[in-house]
């Protein structure tokens, strides 16, 4: 059969589609975005009418996927790692409700923070929730795992966490397709109490979840994705999780590693293999992409067993993503020779595009704030976060999606004046409406600028949920009509716009200013 050339993300999407997927839910976030984008343009998904539109945020997406699972069909929900924080409530509770139709929570982590605020490791959420976790080490596994995970999910009536990291998500390789399964028929859960987490029922469900943990360990021990390879030299045993397995094998020509290797792509940990390795080998080296989860588990608090090496003893860096060279060093091999970057090379950081509407908005905002000095602008996450950089130096915070408005409210409560929030349209739809409600309720003295470029630009121009209804939403939430001001951020309107911003700063109450002009790349993408 002909190979498909797929990104890790796309392999997951194709694998899920071929495994009888009925619905894909998610909110964009690098490096997870391409899973749903692939399904959105896949002719078979369109023909089958698989659900594939973006949700308002990761929490709603997860709940929608859970609803589809309740109705007996197979669903996947996708997000970046920090999205799982937003979805943590339904995610954690879904471990207790469990699943009816198979459900996969696909989360893409970003070690080294290529485009994220932190590098949290979603496997911790897997352990926290007591759900099984699968972690592909290559694109073919990324394709095969959804089918496996759906079956596991339906066998144990439990969601399965599928974790990938940036390198696999955004790396292409040839993938061989398998047979296409039919979608599930609509069917209700057998147990009418299953999804009813009243304390009395939740306690039973939790005991049930605990009672199947040993079975999940057995599943990991028998998993086709975990393997134990014997090695002659038992001075070292190597545990390689997910992608780290590749960086290990990269360093041995013709697969000839002298040490025993435990490849782990499914959790909970395959206990039998860990015990075998610890009893047979003098030292253990743990290679894992992300945080030292496995290393910490087998080391234990007192570390009074075999010598465990990894990120915690300095054999590998404590943070950042792995690569072949780092693993090579941890194996005690000599470094490959390599040149330095010549001194003449200058940095070329990303910047707002020439002609970007946000650039004009920031020039206007800076002018309006001139008389007050610096430090009054709470911002958020999106292209507009680049307004932090010169020449704009226009914003002072970026924490998590929606935090601009809530932090501005808190600062205004403390007496800061002026207190300005800057938030993008998609971010406003994601989690800006609830803090706006707080602002209105307490009549906070804040100016909220909703930068409406008609798209979710940062992650590649997805539609934004609030398109065409931002004013109505603000009015509905309770912002006074005369303090919802729409401006067109163009140099020609500079003076007029500065005047409007100044007026709203002076108004003692909640103002919303909506600078509205499409992202300059939007036209290209839509046509």
């Amino acid at each position, binding site marked *: 059969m002909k*190979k498909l*050339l797929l990104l890790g993300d796309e392999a997951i999407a194709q694998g899920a589609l071929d495994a009888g997927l009925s619905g894909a839910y998610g909110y964009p976030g*690098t*490096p997870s*975005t*391409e899973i749903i984008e692939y399904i959105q343009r896949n002719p078979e998904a369109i023909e089958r009418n698989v659900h594939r539109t973006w949700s308002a945020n990761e929490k709603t997406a997860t709940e929608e996927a859970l609803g589809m699972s309740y109705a007996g069909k197979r669903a996947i929900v996708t997000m970046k790692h920090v999205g799982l924080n937003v979805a943590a409530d339904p995610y954690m509770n879904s471990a207790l409700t469990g699943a009816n139709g198979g459900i996969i929570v696909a989360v893409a982590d970003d070690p080294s923070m*290529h*485009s994220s605020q932190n590098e949290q490791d979603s496997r911790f959420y897997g352990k926290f929730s007591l759900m099984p976790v699968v972690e592909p080490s290559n694109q073919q596994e990324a394709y095969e795992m959804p089918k496996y995970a759906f079956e596991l999910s339906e066998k144990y009536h439990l969601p399965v966490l599928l974790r990938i990291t940036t*390198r*696999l998500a*955004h*790396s*292409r*390789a*040839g993938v061989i397709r398998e047979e296409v399964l039919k979608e599930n028929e609509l069917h209700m859960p057998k147990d009418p109490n299953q999804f009813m987490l009243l304390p009395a029922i939740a306690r039973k469900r939790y005991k049930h979840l605990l009672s199947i943990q040993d079975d999940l360990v057995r599943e990991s021990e028998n998993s086709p994705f975990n393997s134990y390879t014997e090695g002659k030299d038992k001075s070292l045993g190597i545990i390689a999780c997910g*992608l780290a*397995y*590749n*960086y*290990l*094998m*990269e360093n041995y020509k013709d697969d000839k590693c002298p040490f025993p290797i435990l490849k782990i792509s499914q959790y909970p940990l395959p206990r039998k293999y860990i015990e075998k390795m610890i009893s047979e080998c003098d030292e253990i080296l743990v290679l894992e992409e992300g945080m030292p989860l496995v290393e910490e588990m087998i080391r234990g608090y007192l570390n009074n067993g075999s010598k465990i090496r990894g990120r915690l003893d300095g054999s590998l860096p404590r943070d950042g993503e792995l*690569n*072949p*060279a780092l693993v*090579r060093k941890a194996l005690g091999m000599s*470094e*490959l*020779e*390599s*040149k*330095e*970057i*010549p001194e*003449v*090379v*200058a*940095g*070329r*950081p*990303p*910047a*707002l*595009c020439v002609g*970007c509407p946000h650039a004009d908005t920031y020039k206007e905002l800076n002018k309006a704030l001139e008389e007050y000095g610096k430090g009054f602008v709470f911002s958020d996450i999106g*292209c507009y976060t*680049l307004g932090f950089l010169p020449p704009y130096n226009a914003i002072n915070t970026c924490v998590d999606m929606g935090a601009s408005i809530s932090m501005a409210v808190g600062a205004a409560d403390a007496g800061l004046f002026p207190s300005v929030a800057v938030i993008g349209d998609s971010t406003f739809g994601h989690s800006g409406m609830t803090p706006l409600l707080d602002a209105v309720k307490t009549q906070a003295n804040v100016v909220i600028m909703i930068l409406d470029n008609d798209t979710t*630009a*940062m*992650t*590649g*121009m997805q539609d934004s949920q609030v398109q065409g209804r931002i004013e109505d939403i603000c009015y509905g939430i309770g912002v006074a009509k005369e303090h919802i001001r729409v401006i067109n951020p163009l140099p020609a309107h500079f003076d007029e716009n500065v005047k409007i911003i100044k007026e709203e700063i002076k108004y003692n109450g909640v103002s919303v200013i909506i600078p509205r002009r499409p*992202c300059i*790349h939007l036209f290209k993408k839509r046509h």
Partner: protein
Amino acid sequence: MKKDIILAGVGGQGILTIATIIGYAAIESGLYLKQAEVHGMSQRGGDVQSHLRISAKEIYSDLIPQGAADLIISVEPMEALRYLPYLSENGWLITNTQPYLNIPDYPEYEKLMNEIKSLPHNIALDADKIAKELGSSRFMNMVVLGAVKILLCDKMIKP
């Protein structure tokens, strides 16, 4: 056969198109391929790179180890140099010579070219100019890919 290639340029210059074309050619030829790329930032103008690995045998790492690349293909001269730590001792560097000027501290052109010319195996060509002569500078990336094929393939791939 095993070739490790770094593609370099500035966002929006079309290196991912080069990667895709080589990628499909490799798959069509029944070779193994891994191609890691950088996604996410929609804004144009930041540095971008892609690791492209082609082999007759299964490939493990999606990333090319430092000091192991056989070839750097760059559509911009300064970006070509950014990835020198990846180039192997006998590796080739082929680059467009037309600078992409979007930063205030872009280095002196002379100094850049001296660095490029000091490499034992380098090819530098004005791909923007050639593309313009052929109809549009938008195809600059394809000129660079063509140059790789014409000027380098025979040198690099020995039967």
